């Protein structure tokens, strides 16, 4: 019995680890919409979700791109992905810094809400309302 459980758990982790999404990577076909496969099916999904919750998976930021738009304002494009299976709702707050590294006072530096669906990429854009902004710092917190 123990061997059977061990085999089952190993098989599930192997499947999760080796799993690759087929088709166009830009298109997300979620469970209940797409077909089940060896990696994601009615047997493996609950275990994978439980394991994800157990190790506390959450969002990860992949890149933060700064660019100046045509109006002369700095734009921050944040790209990331949600590693967990559940939707992660969170808040973010961006403060803009001038060339001396000082915070540019603005009413737009407030906690804004966003969310990322499970196992999905996300992105959001923030615009500095002053042309003197050259850099940024960003903080996140749970959306209670």
């Amino acid at each position, binding site marked *: 019995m123990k061997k059977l459980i061990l085999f089952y758990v190993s098989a599930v982790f192997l499947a999760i680890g080796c799993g690759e999404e087929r088709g166009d990577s830009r298109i997300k076909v979620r469970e209940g919409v797409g077909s089940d496969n060896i990696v994601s099916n009615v047997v493996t999904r609950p275990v994978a979700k439980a394991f994800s919750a157990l190790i506390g998976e959450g969002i990860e930021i992949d890149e933060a791109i700064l660019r100046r*738009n*045509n*109006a*002369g*304002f700095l*734009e921050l494009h944040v790209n990331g992905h949600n590693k967990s299976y559940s939707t992660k709702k969170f808040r973010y707050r961006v403060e803009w810094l001038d060339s001396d590294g000082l915070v540019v006072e*603005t*009413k*737009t*530096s*407030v*906690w*804004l*809400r966003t969310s990322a669906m499970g196992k999905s990429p996300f992105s959001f*854009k*923030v*615009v500095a*309302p*002053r*042309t003197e902004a050259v850099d940024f710092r960003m903080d996140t917190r749970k959306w*209670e």
Partner: protein
Amino acid sequence: MKAKTIQIITLVSLFSVLFIGCGEETTNIDVVHDEGKPVMALDYRDFDQAASSLVQSMLGSGALKKEDGSRYVVATGRVVNDTMQRIDTDQLMAKIEEEILNSGQAVMTSAVGSGTDKLIHETRELRDSEEFDQSSIAARGTLLAPELSIAGKIFQRNIRYDKKRQQVEYYFQLKLSDAKTGLRFWQKEIIVGKRGSNKSVAW
């Protein structure tokens, strides 16, 4: 008798201290990092969020950037409060006007629109008064007409979600139009949705 009186006084004092101790104390809100629970009605956090998103969208669109580098004259038009709450729409517009001004791309006018400063017109009525030095009074034709106007609306929809809960949707809509041609350069809608107990009152 004396002992009984002392007992009563002690008991009353004890209860008083207990009640004072249990009372909800007043605290100041940390308006930057407020961790308070959301409320069904619109609070300052909703206005902050809506204003921030609207300003970012407006400035980011480039609608306020003039090709020759000069600044647009912008007037605030009518912003309608069509919610069930008593809202001063300046709560939203003051933040937006401040950011437009600070952006350096436009100036707001106080001569016309909802942000009119009555004194601008009252001082012009002193033109024939002998009490005032006429050279200190603004000459005719000195006011600048707005080139762009901002108008908008805040409205609310209440929906019964299930037996115990209601859903309240707040829509913040703003548009920026060319005063001369009437053409609309920019517009944006922000939705703030709340779901909570039927017992909560959203007005």
